[in-house]
């Protein structure tokens, strides 16, 4: 252990010595202990917050079933999720819709999709990846929509953007999912900057809505219903 130079040590001690409180000064222990006891909370922090937390929980449980509150909470949740994930939807007016270019789309075995087969139907084309968990949860919604609206002319094309060996092959070797509702395919080129990207085509095969990033189930369903109602 290094020993400080004696002169320096003494010199510093002398200097610091001027800060020493006088020996005669004795801190008032009794007064300080009383002050400490006064400032300490009578009940622990946990117990202090218990009534507040309980009351809040009861209020939430009572108000949750009220439709207005439920709707507001849902809207807030959607707003937060969309703000965090940067999702957006672009709607095109009927006169401005452009024909969807599906030349890059193929079935899983590499055959070109003939989109004209879908004319007269509202088609949801979703670009997804097996690495995107949000895509997989959206897929369940699309499956539900397909089953609900199939009879009135609705179809879903799930286009995998995975590399050479799309996960869709494992999911659906015959190009259809287990319930036979989603039609799987792949694309030869990167279709969008954001995954998932979902395009809704009207009955004439034109792009009516483009959803990028996170969009809620309700938004999708509203758009699908609006397109199905178009004649």
């Amino acid at each position, binding site marked *: 252990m290094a*020993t400080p130079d004696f002169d320096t040590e003494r010199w510093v001690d002398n200097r610091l010595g001027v800060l020493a409180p006088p020996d005669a000064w004795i801190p008032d222990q009794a007064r*300080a202990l009383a002050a400490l006891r006064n400032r300490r909370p009578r009940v622990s922090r946990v117990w202090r917050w218990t009534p507040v937390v309980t009351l809040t929980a009861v209020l939430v449980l009572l108000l949750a079933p009220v439709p207005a509150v439920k709707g507001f909470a849902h809207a807030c949740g959607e707003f937060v999720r969309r703000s965090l994930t940067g999702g957006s939807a672009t709607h095109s007016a009927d006169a401005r819709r452009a024909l969807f270019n599906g030349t890059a789309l193929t079935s899983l075995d590499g055959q070109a999709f003939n989109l004209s087969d879908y004319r007269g139907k509202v088609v949801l084309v979703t670009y997804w990846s097996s690495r995107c968990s949000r895509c997989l949860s959206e897929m369940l919604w699309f499956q539900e929509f397909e089953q609900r609206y199939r009879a009135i002319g609705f179809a879903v094309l799930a286009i995998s953007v995975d590399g050479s060996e799309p996960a869709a092959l494992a999911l659906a070797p015959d190009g259809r999912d287990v319930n036979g509702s989603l039609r799987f395919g792949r694309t030869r080129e990167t279709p969008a900057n954001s995954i998932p990207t979902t395009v809704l085509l009207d009955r004439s095969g034109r792009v009516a809505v483009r959803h990028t990033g996170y969009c809620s189930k309700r938004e999708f369903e509203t758009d699908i219903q609006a397109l199905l109602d178009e004649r």
Partner: protein
Amino acid sequence: MAEQAESDLETIFIAEYQRIARVIARVTRDPARAEELAVEVFLKWTRTPRAHGPQAPAWLYRAAVRVGLNELRGGVRRSWYERLFSQPQGSAYGARTPEELHSTTEEQLQVRTVLKALSWRSSALLLLRSEGLSYLEIAETLKLNSASVGTFVARAQQEFRQEFVRRYGDA
């Protein structure tokens, strides 16, 4: 359980309060403020369960030094202190005549300024050392290797001297 906590507090308070208050008083130089801050330190200790047990004294000293140096660096009450120490209370620190009082106050200001200019660890080492803590106690308080404390203290003393001389000359 609450009674046990209360008794622990009382035991450690009686054992350490005066030394803790003195450590803080070295930096703040205001006895009333030092007592106030020492109570704050104990209050914080009651809210920090991991500081309880055998490590309590070391934790208290560390908190006291931190509180004292923050007070010194904050300079919030500095002008108030200056006014306070320009009064005859300064005589409690050993000065008897107005000249001695002036000289002591001047010297205290210089030392405080230099302590403020040093790193937190150096200032803490010097304060604890001048309060009479052993190297082992300092090592426990500042969480340093006890074999290196002597080196750190020597280095802090060198830094103090250099900074003091640079600012005020080798008077």
